[in-house]
């Protein structure tokens, strides 16, 4: 049981390049989330999903896209990278059911856009 895994761990992009951050969970959670964390700040929600085929915007969705074709995977796409997207990106999942609804976090992807 690996929990939430993210790839890559680190990435440097040039302005205007695109990339996909991968996120996979093996806990059969319906709910998945993408956050970004800037230095010295808390977590800001980019997008979330309540199940396969259903996604919705969070606080800071501009410049990102997501898809959720399976329960396990929730990739985050950056189409035209900008320096403002330099951040650490965390994927999380939760069951949202019953009494326990904590989020489980992946190890994060540190992205630098130059």
């Amino acid at each position, binding site marked *: 049981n690996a929990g939430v895994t993210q790839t890559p761990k680190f990435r440097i992009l040039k302005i205007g390049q695109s990339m996909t951050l991968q996120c996979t969970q093996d806990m059969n959670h319906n709910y998945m989330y993408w956050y970004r964390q800037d230095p010295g700040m808390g*977590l800001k929600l980019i997008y979330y999903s309540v199940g396969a085929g259903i996604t919705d915007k969070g606080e800071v969705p501009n410049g990102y896209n997501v898809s959720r074709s399976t329960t396990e995977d929730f990739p985050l796409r950056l189409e035209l990278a900008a320096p403002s997207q330099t951040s650490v990106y965390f994927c999380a999942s939760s069951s949202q059911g019953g009494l326990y609804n904590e989020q489980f976090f992946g*190890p994060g992807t540190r992205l630098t856009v130059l």
Partner: protein
Amino acid sequence: EDKVVQSPLSLVVHEGDTVTLNCSYEVTNFRSLLWYKQEKKAPTFLFMLTSSGIEKKSGRLSSILDKKELFSILNITATQTGDSAIYLCAVHSSGTYKYIFGTGTRLKVLA
């Protein structure tokens, strides 16, 4: 607009001290409040609080929720250098399935 505010933003103490971290919130459709500890990597879960006045305890850490005054505190007694981290508070809003995070409190414990 939903918001979660943590205080203080940062704190430096010496080993053995007791610290109290604060989290206040204004969130519609409150479901639960969660505390996380973040060291160098991903946040790790500490507590989830849903009911007022019931203390959750784990070793030297404890937390309590006041749903009337809309705040929670996280206490750490006999602090150790290993407690140095960012402590994040998040509130789960059942209406939107979102977790709203505060900016965190950065705690540094000096030997």
